[in-house]
C-alpha cells in the first residue's frame, strides 16, 4: 500500500508524491522547469518539463540515459521497463545499493515533455511508482484559474499572473506574482512559521509595522477561511504627473494567523489605480489550515 500521498502544483504541472517526500528544489522564472523532492535521507524524485513544438522520440531519451550510465562496471545493470503506466517509457539502472528509474512522457494536447527520475534506495515500489507517474499532468491551458501548491502554500490565481520571485527560507515562504505591464498588478504571498516565538503583538499591530509607506485609506476586517483577517488599504503617489492625473498606487494588505497550522499569512495586492477601491482578482484564493507532514516516518 503506497504511503499517504499529496500533490505539488508548480508552474503548470501537478505532481503526486508521498507526503514525506518534501520539495527540495523548485525552479524559478528564468530556469528550466524542474522540481525535486527528498525524503529524510536523500533525493527521491526529480521532475523536469518543457514545452515542445514537435513530437519527441522518447527512444532518444532512453538512449541518452543509457549513454549517461557508468561504463565498464559489472555491478550496474540497465533494463528497459515495460511495467510503467501507458504511455510512459523508461529505463531502470540497478546498482549495488539502489535502483534509479528514468521515465518520460509527451503530453500531446498540452505539448509538454515531462522527464522523471525516481530513486529507490532499497527496493523498487512499482505500485507507488505507477501512482506517482499517473498523477503527473500539466494544467489545462484553457482553465480560467491557475492552482499553485508547494512549500505549504496553496493558492488559486487568474492565469494572467506569472510567478516572478519565490524564496523559501527557514520559517518564511515568499512568492511574488506579477500581471502583464498593461494591468500592472502585483500579488505577494508570505507564510511565516514559528509565530509562537516571534509574533508578540496582535496581527493588526504587526501589519502596521509592515506597511510603512503610503497613507492609510481604510482599515477593516475580513473573513479568510473562517479566520478573522486584518485588512488595510493604503495609497501612495509616485511623481507629480501621476498625482495630477489622479493616478496613485493602491495597496491592499490582508494578514491573519491560522490557529490550525499556527502560521501567519500575509497577502498584499498592489496596483496603480484611480479610484478608492482595490478589489482582489476574481479567482483569488488562499488556503490555510495545512497539516504538517512530520511523524509519518521515512518512506523507503
Amino acid at each position: 500500500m503506497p504511503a499517504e500521498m499529496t500533490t505539488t502544483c508548480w508552474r503548470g504541472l501537478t505532481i503526486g508524491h508521498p507526503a514525506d517526500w518534501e520539495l527540495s528544489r523548485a525552479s524559478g522564472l528564468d530556469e528550466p522547469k524542474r522540481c525535486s523532492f527528498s525524503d529524510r535521507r536523500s533525493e527521491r524524485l526529480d521532475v523536469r518539463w518543457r514545452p515542445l513544438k514537435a513530437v519527441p522520440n522518447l527512444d532518444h531519451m532512453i538512449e541518452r540515459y543509457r549513454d549517461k550510465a557508468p561504463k565498464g562496471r559489472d555491478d550496474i545493470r540497465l533494463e528497459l521497463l515495460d511495467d510503467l503506466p501507458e504511455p510512459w517509457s523508461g529505463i531502470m539502472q540497478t546498482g549495488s545499493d539502489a535502483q534509479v528509474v528514468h521515465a518520460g512522457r509527451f503530453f500531446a494536447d498540452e505539448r509538454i515533455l515531462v522527464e522523471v527520475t525516481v530513486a529507490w534506495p532499497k527496493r523498487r515500489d512499482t505500485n507507488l511508482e505507477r501512482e506517482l507517474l499517473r498523477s503527473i499532468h500539466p494544467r489545462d491551458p484553457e482553465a480560467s484559474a491557475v492552482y499553485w501548491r508547494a512549500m505549504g502554500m496553496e493558492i488559486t490565481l487568474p492565469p494572467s499572473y506569472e510567478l516572478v520571485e519565490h524564496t523559501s527560507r527557514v520559517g518564511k515562504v515568499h512568492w511574488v506574482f506579477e500581471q502583464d505591464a498593461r494591468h500592472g498588478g502585483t500579488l505577494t504571498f508570505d507564510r511565516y512559521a514559528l509565530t509562537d516565538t516571534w509574533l508578540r503583538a496582535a496581527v493588526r499591530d504587526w501589519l502596521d509595522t509592515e506597511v510603512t509607506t503610503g497613507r492609510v485609506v481604510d482599515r477593516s476586517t475580513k473573513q479568510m477561511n473562517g479566520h478573522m483577517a486584518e485588512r488595510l488599504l493604503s495609497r501612495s503617489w509616485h511623481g507629480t504627473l501621476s498625482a495630477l492625473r489622479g493616478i496613485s498606487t493602491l495597496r491592499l494588505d490582508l494578514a491573519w494567523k491560522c490557529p490550525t497550522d499556527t502560521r501567519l499569512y500575509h497577502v498584499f495586492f498592489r496596483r496603480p489605480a484611480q479610484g478608492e477601491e482595490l478589489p482582489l482578482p476574481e479567482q483569488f484564493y488562499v488556503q490555510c489550515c495545512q497539516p504538517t507532514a512530520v511523524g509519518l516516518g521515512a518512506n523507503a
Partner: protein
Amino acid sequence: MSRKRRAKGQARQAKPSFSTDDFLLAVPHRNHAMKTTPQPGKKLLAEVPMKRPKGLIPPFSWLLPYSSHRRVELDAVGAEVLGLCDGNRSVESIIENFAKHHKLSFRESQLSVTRFLQMLVERGLVAIVGRGQTSGQAHEAN
C-alpha cells in the same frame, strides 16, 4: 610524532565526513564543562571555559584582554534545541521533536535545527557523536 604532524592529524580527526544518514543518526552531547543560566524571556546564557593561549603570560596578559569563558546568549528557540541535546536523542529525534512542537514540516525543522547545531558545535557548547564514536572522543575534540 612531531607537534606539527599531531596537529594535522587532530585537524583531520575533527572534520570527519558525514553522510545525511550518519548525521541524522548521530547524537549531540552537551559540553560537560558548560554552565547555563536562565535569563528572562526563556532565554539562556551558556558559558564554556576556554583554554588560555600558551603565549599569553605576563606582561602580555596584562595588556591583552582575555576572557576565561566563552559566553553565548541563546534565545528561546536556541535554548529549546540545546535542552533537547541530552546525550540520548539523535539529531533526527531532535528535528522531529522541534517540528512537532512548532508545527513545522520535517525539512523546515531539519534546516533550522541543523544550522543551529552547527553553531553550537562551532562555539564548543555541543559535540556531535556519530556511529562508531564514543562520547569521550567527542569531549576530547571539544
